[in-house]
């Protein structure tokens, strides 16, 4: 067996000193057949077209208009472009974070027509004509913080805060549906967001303070 095609054969390499020559692609095929996939291309992200240098992905962009944080924004997007990418790499709104890029962590949560959504898993062209709100759009133009942001500041919520924009957007969206939640309800409301620093108690303190300020506002 000159090439490593058979996963069973692959296993023999543990005991056999005899080396086998394989190509990377064939190894992957072997592993997939064996039940585990090795992905080479997990982030398929693209540079802004303003660079004027086309890669293999440059073609197929269309100019569309998005409503982001209350303002119309004209932007060239590709068919397969995600909203997170458009926001971060084309509109400069880097407050929306990417923790997994696969709808697992909630770092990329934004509001689409007031409903929290994972922007890493929404295609940009599908939100034409809808209102997209990001963390940058919460504070008033004069800098006055949104009540939920103020709640976080007053309670010193979160640690590294990489998850924070996502949590805040989820909470703001949830409070529109349920303005007077219990702690347990608020926890359910933001349970699509993961925090690895994990002081969830203080996160809840902060969001509940934000809920209180929102009701008062």
């Amino acid at each position: 067996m000159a090439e490593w095609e058979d996963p069973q054969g692959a296993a023999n390499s543990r005991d056999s000193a005899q080396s086998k020559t394989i190509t990377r692609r064939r190894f992957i095929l072997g592993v997939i057949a064996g039940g585990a996939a090795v992905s080479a291309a997990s982030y398929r992200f693209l540079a802004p077209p303003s660079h004027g240098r086309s890669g293999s992905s440059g073609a197929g962009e269309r100019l569309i208009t998005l409503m982001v944080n209350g303002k119309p924004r004209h932007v060239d997007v590709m068919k397969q472009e995600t909203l997170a990418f458009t926001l971060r790499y084309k509109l400069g709104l880097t407050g929306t974070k990417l923790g997994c890029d696969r709808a697992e962590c909630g770092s990329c949560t934004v509001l689409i027509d007031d409903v929290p959504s994972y922007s890493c898993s929404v295609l940009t062209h599908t939100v034409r004509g809808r209102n997209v709100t990001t963390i940058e759009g919460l504070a008033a133009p004069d800098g006055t913080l949104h009540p939920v942001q103020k709640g976080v500041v007053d309670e010193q919520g979160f640690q590294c805060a990489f998850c924070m924009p996502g949590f805040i957007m989820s909470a703001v969206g949830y409070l529109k549906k349920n303005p007077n939640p219990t702690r347990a309800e608020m926890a359910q409301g933001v349970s699509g967001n993961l925090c690895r620093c994990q002081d969830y108690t203080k996160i809840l303190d902060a969001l509940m303070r934000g809920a209180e300020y929102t009701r008062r506002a």
Partner: protein
Amino acid sequence: MTEMAAVEIAKAEDQKPRPFGAGYKLIGKDYSTNDLVAKVTGTAKYAEDFRAEGMLFCRLALSPMPHGRVKRINAEKALAMPGVRGILTPDEVPGHANYVNDNGTMIKADRFSELALADEPMYQGEPILAVAAVDELTCAEAIEQIEIEMEPLPFNTDPLDSLRPGSANAREEGNVWVPNAAPSRDSHLEAVKWTDDDFAVEKEGKMPMGHAPEEWSYGDVDAGFRNAALVLDETFSTEDVSHQCLEPRTTMAYWQNGKLYLYTGTQSTMQTVPAIARWMHMPEDKVVFVSEYTGGGFGSKITGAQTLVIPALLSKKLNAPVMMRISREEEHFIGRARPGIRARTKVGFARDGRITALDMFLVSDAGSYGSNGDGGACAQITSLLYQPPAMRWRNITVATNTLPRSAQSAPGGMQAIAIVEPILSKAARKLGLDQVALRRVNCPEGKAEFGPPRPDGKRGYVTSCFLKQALDEGARQFNWDARVARQPKRVGSKVRGLGVALSTYHGGTSGFDGLLVVTPEGRVQIYSGIGNLGTEAFIDVHRAAAEVLDVPWEAVDIIWGDTSKNLPYSCHSGGSQTIHAMTRAGHAVGLECVQRLKEVAAKSLGGEAADYEVANLRVARKGGGAGMSFAQAAQAAIKLGGIYDGHDVNPQVNGYTKHSVAQLAGTGLVASARDTFPHDGDSFSFLACFAEVETDVETGKYTITDYLGYADVGTVIHPAALGGQILGRSTLGIAHAIGQKWVIDPQYGVTVAERFYQNKPPTILDVPVDMKWNALNIPDPETPVGARGCGEPPVGGGCSAILNALSDALGDNIYQRVPVNCDTILTSFEAGRPMQNPLLAHI
């Protein structure tokens, strides 16, 4: 301010909890940290948020196999693709070399250490090649066009299997890290195999114990067991758990005028510079490092790593800025993990629960690069936390073809506590003792000793320990006795269980610098070279300087996150160092600044420095009279020059700080100082952790219904931040108990749990909605502000309080390894014995 340096400790048990902040203006009070508004508005810049004109992207090709050799790379097709700018291969990365840092310390080349790209990858997922292109899709497509011919090499992903006769070794040089003879602190690789006889006990569910290259002991261990009323001999394994920082590690690099500008997130700003210089083989003064915000570290981002070097090298080669973001899968492979430890532990107990002897045998997994100290730390923490009068430790650290390990919050300590606590719980049940009472008789106190005798024959000891008070106060706050008395424990299929666990870890080092400038505008600018990990310690510690200076916090600016901004030599934000090490440095520079202000006033207004006092942003004659504002004093300092404005530098400070002082010279009253305060003993922090669970024996599902962590961490500096550390790191520990693990297919050596959905950190629904914390706030007598760190100590306690609560509910025959999940409980509860193999790796 209070004279906290003069705290006298009469007797440990006389010390009572104190209200936070008593006697201070800033210390012990909550406040909003200077970086918080940027975080809530989304303007805080993490590495991936930086952009540079003409920035290229870069992606990695990872090894598909656990051990192999790159035989040939053909990138012709890829390089011809539009948009592809270049590749980086293993033969282009700097190799192993000796390195002398700017402090004059020589770091010897280690041929077993990682390089930026590997031509002989040691684990599946190790980077072997990088491609830069105008966008990431082009990079990914280019990688698909590259032929990488590899020769598979023998591998082993299971440390115990690697000790079996005839099994494959992880590396050609061997499979076990053996310490070199003293005084060397390095290790070398040897091939070690145990015998079939050694493995015979496996059938009884016990860990085999063959030859172990590391060993120490103190006291009469045999006599301890002979005199015991109860001896338990338990096999238990802790799991390898990935750090899984929420921010995947990202770096942007460019070169300008021969200088490397590097943007990433790490746990240290200042100490990352020499690390980069070492990886890159370049002078430190040619590195500008920017790390303003870091999306989690937990020990995995202490300083530099290959993820910093790859874009730096590509950027140099291609003469363009390069951004390298990595995916969640890649983060799993490159992002480091805590080593799992398999343990066989024999503990003797007297009738009152006091431990009479402890014998611990560990098989530690080193992963693919270098040895690690987790096995050694495991023993140290055990000897401190449970004070066995006699103890023996044996350890074998085995190299495997699994991803590289690194320190993770409470390295070794977390494993120690997870291994020993369930044994204490079982002993209390067998001896008919209350769980808190059994821990109380074994609890360390005062200048408690730990570890084996040092070369001078004496054992090490801690600066102070008030864990008994934390245990008593915690039990009171948790209503332990009332909860124990509550009946019935079982209602239908639901069974309640209560757990208590002790916990400890190092609480910080010493010897770092503080640097501040009083500006001609009258502001106090404090420079911080600590990494901003989010724990807020990187700002909190400077309250110690502001407290000494008696300035309102509003008059203080903190400068951090960019080495071109003249930062001092600071500790890295890891190992619970920061609060201890940097409040000391802050206190020192505060005192230095006060002295210089008085001298400036005396020189300007007459009299002696001692005639003046500093308060309210003024330096003035004691008892009223002439004085000057901070602004005037700074202007006078600039006129005086020399030591007052930074043209001369405090000779005690580190070389890096001296460089920064020189850069700041003439900008105001420049004060720098080194922490030279003595301390008698090593600083450790302690916690008593309590939990209640409710399990459903029909489904195996369980809920944590209550949790309390009660801390002995010395003076509380910033209560909200301390609470974050206690509960956040408790939850990191709880994660080990309730679900986190790797799954590796031993046949192919490839991982099958690399994303969050396969290996999920706890969510907000996995923990109680109102976990509780508290702290004694009794100052440590050996450090000027009395404060110690608390990043590591809660982890083991969090994990073990849950494990102990589970065995309280379900008995001692459920688990022999973590995590304990639904199927662990379902299968074992019915069978009446632990049904999961305790020794197989990564199942």
